[in-house]
């Protein structure tokens, strides 16, 4: 473990914090695993999927949303790289774009819910409706919470709290944002494509 001893204190702290974050995200992933299990269980016990008389889910908009989410994740990690190089302005620009893309994702998601609901699929339209809304809403909740955190990070960054020597909080945020991204991709594939 001599390599760790040669690291500077803030780097060691960052390592510990990211170990903790990985453990926490593993835990949170299991919560989503429970929800995905429910989806699979419900689907495997259903006679036909989607059940007869249920409107077809759109594909184009959710696919666009997947691209939006991926893009935001990518730009955020580029921003972290800029921060590590001490380029705070570029980091702030990247973070702003990430936040805007996150808001776009939520807006599109709400639009999808609205159109699906108008087509006749509601929260209480049997198991299909319940499982569709529950999974997507629970994910959207994570995007919303993530956005609040990102806005706090942006505000703190404008106040000059982060530099190349203080990247811990930003790194933890990127980890969370990537996690939300990966969960969305899995959700897109299982709910809309499969």
């Amino acid at each position: 473990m001599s390599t760790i001893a040669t690291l500077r204190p803030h780097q060691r702290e960052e390592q510990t914090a990211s170990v903790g974050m990985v453990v926490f995200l593993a835990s949170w992933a299991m919560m989503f695993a429970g929800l995905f299990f429910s989806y699979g269980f419900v689907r495997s016990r259903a006679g036909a999927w989607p059940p007869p008389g249920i409107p077809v889910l759109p594909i184009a908009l959710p696919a666009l949303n997947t691209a939006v989410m991926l893009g935001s994740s990518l730009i955020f990690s580029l921003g972290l790289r800029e921060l590590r190089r001490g380029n705070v302005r570029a980091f702030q620009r990247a973070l702003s774009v990430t936040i805007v893309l996150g808001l776009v994702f939520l807006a599109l998601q709400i639009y999808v819910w609205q159109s699906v609901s108008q087509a006749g699929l509601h929260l209480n339209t049997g198991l299909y409706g319940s499982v569709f809304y529950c999974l997507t809403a629970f994910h959207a909740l994570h995007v919303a919470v993530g956005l609040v955190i990102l806005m706090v990070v942006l505000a703190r960054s404008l106040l000059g709290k982060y530099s190349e020597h203080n990247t811990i909080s930003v790194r933890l945020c990127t980890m969370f944002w990537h996690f939300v991204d990966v969960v969305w991709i899995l959700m897109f594939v299982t709910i809309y494509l499969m």
Partner: protein
Amino acid sequence: MELQAIHKEPTSFLKRYVFSEDHKYIAKQFLWAGLLFLAFGGILAMAIRWQWAYPGQEVPAVGKLLLPRSGGVITPAAYQSIFTMHGLIMIFFAITPILIGAFGNYTIPLMIGARDMAFPKLNMLSFWFFVVSQVMVLASFGVQLGTAGAGWTTYPPLSTNVGTPGHGQTLVVAAVFVTGVATIMGSVNYVTTVIRFRAPGMTYMRMPLTVWGLWLTAILNVLFVPVLGSAALLLLMDRMMGTQFFIAGAAGGKGDPILFQHLFWIFGHPEVYILILPAWGIVSDMVCFFGRKPAYWYKGSVYAMCAVTILSAVVYGHHMFLTGMNPLLGQGFMLLTLIISVPAEVLFLNWLHTIWKGSIRTTVPMLFALGMIFVFGLGGLTGVFLGTISTDLYLHDTMFVVGHFHFTMAAASFLASFAGIYFWFPKMFGKQMNQTLGKWHFWGSTIFITLVFGGQMIAGYAGQQRRLFDPYQYTFLKHLHPLNTYTSYAGFALGLFQLIFIYNFVASILSGKKAEKNPWQVSTLEWSLPSPPEYHNFDVVPTVIRGPHEYANPDAIKLLGRDWLSQTEILPEAGAVAESEVTAGAAE
């Protein structure tokens, strides 16, 4: 390994006594919160036993006060609530905070040579989330239609609005979710702390088995409590938002109640190991500390605990043999379940081998550890009948199941908790507990625990069903009344013997004899510190040079005149060489 900085003890009242970030203080907070709810859950158990012995008769002393409308008689709805809340309180709000919250917080940093947890703030939040969940549970007793009544497993459709319409059930499900969040926060801390903050030389294979047990428990908690979270979430959606996951059958929906059972037991089976792994760890250390011999096949115990941790994740189906599961799947679950008895047997034999020919010191913690081995043996052996499909078909939902899981989860965890409390009390409070009273408490607890849960098993084997409001409503069960009455007497006696503990615990804190640094003469790191330790634990982070179980070393006896060596201690002869490497921190 990261070295932690020394932080000064905060001076403000709030930071010191309420929102403390010191793992030792948080441990004490968890201990008090857990013990209070243990007493609460225990009183509910007394009420259950009253119903078994004297169904339809007024509950003495408190009956009129708690059940004024029925004149002190337990009603069917009240009985439902009583056994539901007994289970939930004992599992989530009593054993979990004591075994994991208190011992996990107290022992992990001290035993691995860390100055605190990895994330002290998160640790503080974990406790206060837990308090919020406890308050929610207490509040649920006050709302209209009373508290939860769908059994501790909360199976739908009984647990949906159709079966239990009151807000009490909603509050309790939400409380379980909140306590789950608290548990995850604590467990993230434990897992990270063990990975990152072990002192130099404290390799994984030099960690005390207590830490191993708690660490594996934390890993299981991190991975499987969230699954319970998802189940609770879906149930709450059904109750509050109008989704239809579980509403089915006569209730009028098209949901699938079996889904809940799957989610519940994916969590629920690891949960029983969550509650027993710390107990195994503590007992493995105790038999060695007080058998005055190195633990027999230390690595075997570690591997066995790891194997149980992994297996515990893939056996949950044995709770659901009667749900119309595919027989092939059922056989798979049966096979995996029975395989668990192999690592469990390894641990068991290691304990016996450790005691074998040791110079046993029958201190109170040792007695409780031996008691745990006894009751866990009974519980483990009877589990085989429930894991086997053919016998489970008959025994399912009888008192045999109740007796079995009480022997393993309740009796074993409970006795190991007491072993831990008596053992670490001097370090936690700086006082010595009364050993004579402790021995009375031990004999009373162990004998009556065996009689209560043994009585339940015999009744169950005779066909007594669980969860019946009137246990004797069927003619074929009437002849079991005398047996159940004796079981109830044993239960009441068990309750009375806990008064000795309450007295001993409180009196020792107030006016116990001052404890020395190392009253038990054991080798782990926490006993190299003053009792109680400083705020930052270690002035100098110790360098560990040997395993946790250094007893009966002939060199130590010859050179130092005692039979144990601290984990950091250099033997005088070998000292000249190692002195330059190890500067300070050696015990004694």
